[in-house]
Every structure is written in structure tokens, then in C-alpha cells.
């Protein structure tokens, strides 16, 4: 089976992290974001993944070669020369997706983190025999999104309503689809929206079905959602493979620590923390609801919450980092500094406190 992952553009909402790496390679729970999806696809028998990008592929190519070898799956890039929207890239990659076997192919939005119940999705798709299946997820405030109105029993989609003013339903498009190759004939090679142009037509033909996504769902394309997403992901990890989470007197709640990271004495880590490869957390450190990327050093007595610490940064002794502070790659926060929501671009040294949220360039 094949899959297309819509990687899209510059990932500006995840800056400053995306100033150092393209968004699919930004780590989430100690693994490049896109690897979560590729691994789940490999598990259901996908043999080739196409990445639809409109940004320089050179940076990605090296990483992809690595994944290809380790996972035994073929990964190729389909590069848009002009932004093609959410459906156009499928037309661009049609030769790779429609291989004549008649098998359906997956389309994923790269920012989405979930449990990826792909086996169930394949089952559901076969059972209804329609042309396309989209996964939907329940949200509290449907008016912020595009709502999918469907028949409860069969899941057949009746229509889409963009940002509805009155309540029409609480399920929104989760950005995970399983499509028959015939869908490709409905898409022209031009900037096209799959939600606004393609799916409504398939729905009108009564060929579009929706499956409610079991488990959590999060679009982690921006820092606030990234942090919430980590909480949901670790919750789910606890249920499925609790052995991977850290345990011990210094651990509270769900905490993921890479095996090569070192944690000192007298620390309190958690809840909802991910500590990446090669990190060094010195004695007496408090970490909660944060991500610490590869190679970071957190010095003694520091306290970090609700923040993301970028690759190879250091946080000084007694520093306090909180309230959506995002440190880019190689940022060094001096001892005793306080950051309240600072957003710091790569290769900076922070010598004085940041009292209210601001961008440090």
C-alpha cells in the first residue's frame, strides 16, 4: 500500500524550532514528528510513503535515507513548484499513488498526532465499499473548524459546513484519509482544497464515509498545541506500553526519558515531560509539562514548566523557565534568569530576565 503525507511549507507557526529543522523533522516525544506517522503506516503494510513538500527537500533527504534503511520502507519526495493546496499534491504524485493494484492509499496531514488506528480504518473502508473514508474527531468548539455532518449509523457523509454559526455536529476533519485511486481522477493539477472542492463532490455521490477517530487527536503545528499534544500522547502511551515511561521516586505522572539522557539527584520530573537523547539534567531540577530536545543541559536547581527547550541549549542554575517559553536551537540561558514566555531564536545567550512574553531575535 502507498501513503502520501502532506508536509506543506515553511512551518512558520513552529518557529523558532523550524528555523533549525524542517517541520517534519522537529522532534515530538523524542522522535521526529514524521517518524510517528511513517512507523504507524509501516505497521499496516504500507511499502512506500510519498512526502508532498513545497520547501527545499535537500535538508530532508539525508534524514529520509536513514529512516528508509532502518524501517525498510521507501520514502520519496514530491515537490510542488507552486503551493497546490490540500488536494493538488495528490494529483502531482498520482503516478506514485495509483500503481495499478487498485488498492486504496492513505493521505495524512503531517501536523496531526493521534493513535493512528490504520488497521481499523482499512477495515471500515472495506466494509462500506465507498470511494473514500475520512477520519473525524470530536471537538468541544466545532465552530472554529470545518464540521463534517454524517449519518450516525453508517458514517456516510452528508455534507461539510465550514465554521458553522449554529450547531450542526461536533465532528471535524482529522486530516487522515483512506482513498481509492479513483479519487485521483477528481483532482486537477492546480491549487485545490480537498475539503472545499473534492470531498463535497464525493459526498454528493454518496461515496464518502467518516470514521470517528478513537483516542486522542492533536494538530501540533504550533507550540501551545504541541505541549497539549505531548500530554495526550503520553496518556495514550501509558495505556498501550507503560513500560516505555519512566518510573522512580523522582517521577510524577507520565514522563518519557530517552535511554541516553542522564538525570541527577533530588529532581522532580513530570507530569507530561519528554527528555531527549543525550540530555543532562543536573541535581535538584524541576521539570513539568515540557519538552527537552536532544543534547540539552539543564543545570542544578532550575525549574521549567510549560515550555519547549530546543536542541543543544542550556538552562542555567536556578533559572526559571515557564509560560510557553520556546528556546530555539543552541540557546543559553544564564544562571538565575527568569523567562516568562520568551520566544528565543537560535544561537542566542539570555543574560537578563524576560518578564513578559516577547520574541528575542
Amino acid at each position: 500500500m502507498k501513503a502520501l503525507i502532506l508536509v506543506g511549507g515553511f512551518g512558520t507557526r513552529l518557529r523558532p524550532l523550524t528555523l533549525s529543522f524542517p517541520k517534519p523533522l522537529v522532534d515530538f516525544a523524542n522522535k521526529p514528528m514524521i517518524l510517528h506517522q511513517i512507523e504507524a503506516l509501516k505497521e499496516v503494510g504500507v511499502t512506500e510513503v510519498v512526502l508532498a513538500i513545497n520547501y527545499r527537500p535537500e535538508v530532508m533527504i539525508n534524514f529520509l535515507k536513514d529512516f528508509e534503511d532502518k524501517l525498510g520502507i521507501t520514502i520519496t519526495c514530491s515537490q510542488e513548484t507552486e503551493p497546490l493546496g490540500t488536494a493538488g499534491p495528490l494529483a502531482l504524485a498520482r503516478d506514485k499513488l495509483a500503481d495499478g493494484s487498485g488498492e486504496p492509499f492513505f493521505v495524512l496531514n503531517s501536523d496531526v498526532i493521534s493513535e493512528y488506528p490504520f488497521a481499523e480504518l482499512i477495515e471500515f473502508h472495506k466494509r462500506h465499499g465507498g470511494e473514500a473514508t475520512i477520519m473525524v474527531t470530536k471537538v468541544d468548539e466545532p465552530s472554529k473548524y470545518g464540521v463534517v455532518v454524517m449519518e450516525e449509523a453508517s458514517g456516510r457523509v452528508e455534507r461539510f459546513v465550514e465554521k458553522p454559526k449554529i450547531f450542526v455536529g461536533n465532528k471535524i476533519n482529522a486530516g487522515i484519509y483512506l482513498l481509492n485511486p479513483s479519487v485521483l481522477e477528481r483532482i486537477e493539477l492546480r491549487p485545490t482544497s480537498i475539503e472545499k472542492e473534492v470531498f463535497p463532490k464525493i459526498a454528493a455521490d454518496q461515496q464518502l464515509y467518516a470514521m470517528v477517530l478513537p483516542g486522542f487527536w492533536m494538530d501540533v503545528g504550533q507550540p501551545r498545541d504541541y505541549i497539549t499534544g505531548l500530554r495526550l500522547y503520553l496518556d495514550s502511551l501509558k495505556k498501550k506500553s507503560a513500560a516505555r515511561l519512566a518510573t522512580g521516586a523522582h517521577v510524577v505522572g507520565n514522563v518519557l526519558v530517552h535511554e541516553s539522557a542522564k538525570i541527577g539527584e533530588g529532581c522532580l520530573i513530570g507530569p507530561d515531560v519528554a527528555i531527549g537523547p543525550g540530555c543532562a539534567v543536573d541535581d535538584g531540577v524541576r521539570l513539568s509539562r515540557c519538552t527537552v530536545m536532544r543534547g540539552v543541559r539543564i543545570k542544578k536547581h532550575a525549574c521549567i514548566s510549560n515550555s519547549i527547550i530546543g536542541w543543544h541549549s542550556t538552562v542555567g542554575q536556578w533559572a526559571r523557565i515557564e509560560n510557553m517559553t520556546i528556546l530555539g536551537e543552541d540557546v543559553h540561558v544564564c544562571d538565575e534568569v527568569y523567562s516568562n514566555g520568551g520566544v528565543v531564536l537560535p544561537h542566542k545567550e539570555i543574560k537578563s530576565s524576560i518578564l513578559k512574553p516577547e520574541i528575542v531575535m
Partner: protein
Amino acid sequence: MAGAEQRVVAVIMVGGPTKGTRFRPLSLNVPKPLFPLAGQPMVHHPISACRRIPNLAQIYLIGFYEEREFALYVSSISNELRIPVRYLREDKPHGSAGGLYSFRDYIMEDSPSHIVLLNCDVCSSFPLPDMLEAHKKYGGMGTLLVNKVSAESANQFGELVADPDTNELLHYTEKPETFVSDLINCGVYIFTPNIFNAIEDVLKQKKDRANLRRVSSFEALQSATKALPADFVRLDQDILSPLAGKKELYTYQTLDFWEQIKTPGMSLRCSGLYLSQFRRTSPHLLASGDGKRTATIVGDVYIHPSAKVHPTSKIGPNVSISANARVGAGARLINCIILDDVEIMENAVVIHSIVGWKSSIGKWSRVQAIHLGEGDHNAKLGITILGEAVDVEDEVVVVNSIVLPNKTLNVSVQEEIIL
């Protein structure tokens, strides 16, 4: 003593990518030395100045950027000016004097009698031929270009004291906390090859001290200040300061403009200084027009030959328009740098700003920096900066903001940094 062949080699220090973050966001897209001022890459201006030195044998650019960032520029400028220009990459930081020393074999290849050392991010008239004559008369090892500035701003630089009669450098301090002098170091030097001996002496001293530190374990535990590696030699603190007052170093004062180009705001200001220099030295490079068949030009304006500017637009003062840019009907540009491939639509206004490559400015939109009160101008020199490929939609107003590359603005913004 006029030697038979008094060859001169020039060395221009261009810095590197992670060192100066003050030039962001422009430095996210282009190495600072290649950012255009008055239509030419920043480094072009000191290179052109070096060309006026008699018997110039070679120009070296030394820095930390990847070779490929400078490859194209270096080959085209060598061709254009008919002087060998070569980029040498430092493998690791050695300090400003250490870097010079690490390339001494290249520099001494032409057996120069004098070495000119310049910082790339300095905006100056670079009076090098006169400075060289003065240096020869002084007969010392080195001559520094110096400038008189306001007492308040002097502590941002290296402050120095010179003998009013002999011009000898008597005292030098880098960025002092208390006032020493209003005479500052411009970052332009002329040395005789003896400079390498002076640097060697400092290296030896440092090595000896490092060996001593290894023996004494207490010293080894000290990490209060970052211990510099033994082969790190800074020109200012390690060479100039100790040699001041020993009849080795002299000063030459520039009476022309001089600025440091550390931020995008300063680059706009320096672009203006170079444009006004063109007015004096090469007026044919500047644009002119009266609104009849070509646009109305006010003050000093540079327009690249491939740019298209509508005759009903009004441009200047201090505007630089780069290759393939298009300026639409009725547009107004004041004090700005418009980079390559920018499209400015009808009736748009751009003031005190830098518009990045491939950006587009919509109809009736306004991209501007405004500062109330003249006094603050020096402090931050805030300008509005649009990074590469930023689209400002029709009628949108962008004031006192910085926009990173690849963004679209469809609502007006003020005082914001947009990542």
C-alpha cells in the same frame, strides 16, 4: 625609503553565521557581508577602497562562512576589478589577531611590505592611500584609523588616546565602563609584517600561562569567566592595548563619515552614506528623473538597470532598488532598501524600511517605521523589515514591525515581530 616593490596585501574580516544575531532577520537569508548597501554587497565597499591602494597585490576575505557562500561573489569581483580576491575560511575561532596569524603564509606569499586589515561591517570612506602614506612616515609597526565621536557613544567602541603631535597611540581600552576618550578605533589598520611577530609573542605567552594553569589545580577549577583557548588572540585587548605607548602604533584620523553596520537599521543608514558618497565620486551611478519619462527622483537614489520603476512614482531620498524589482504607478518610496524581485503595486508607500527579496507590497498598502522624538533614533534605529517572500496584501499597514520570511500579512500590524 621607497622600496623597489612595495606590494600591499589587504585582508578583510567578514565574520561568520552564528556570531552576529543582531543582523537578523536579514542574516537568516544572506550572509551579512553580502547584504547590499547602495546597490553593492557590503563587502564591495572596502574592496573598492582597497583597489585605490598603489601596488595592491591581493585581497583576502577571511571568515567562518562556508566557502560556497562566497564562491560566486569572489570570482565575479576578481574578474570585474582585475584583482585577485580570495575567500579563506577559518576552521575555528582564533580571535581577530589569531585569525590573521593563522593565514600568515597566504598573506606573506606576495612578500608584501604592508598589510591592510579591515572589518567588513564598517561603513567608511576608507582613506587608505593617505593612511598608508602617513603610516610610512610614522615608521611604526601599525597605524589605526580613528574617529572622534560623541562622548556618550564612545564606550560602545575601543577608546584610545593619541599624542596630538606625533599621533602615536598612547592608550587603548576596549568598551570601557568609564569615560577614557572620545577618540575611537574604526576597525581599519595598516601593519608591517612585524605584526606577525607581535602576535607570535602573545601566543607564546598564552601557551606558557596555559601550561602553568595545568600544573596548578586551583586555577583549573576556575570557570567564572570563559577560559579562552591558548591560540585565541584578540587584536584589541591582546595586541593594541599592550603595545600602546611603546612607539610602535600610530593613529590616523578620518574626517569623513564612519559607522558600524551591526543592525539592519544601521545598514539602511549606511546605504544612504554610500549613496551620498557616490554623489561626490561617481554620480553616474545614481538615478535621476523628473517624473516626465522616468520616475521623480529626490536626493540620492540607486536603481539597478534591470528594475522597472513607473514614471508616476516618486523615489527618494536614500532609496536603493535592486535587480528585477518592479515599482508600480503612483508608489512612494522614502529611505528604504528594496531587494531583488520585489513587486511594489500601485500607490503603495514604503518609508524607513527594508523589503526582502521576492516580497510583494499590495496596492495602497503602507510599510513604514515611525519614531516620535528625534532622540531615540540613535538608540535602536528601528526600521520595518520584511524578510524574504513576505506578501503584504492590498491596503494593509505595517508599522514598526519585523516580519520573518514566507509570511502573508492580510491584517495591519504595529510594533510586532512576526515569526
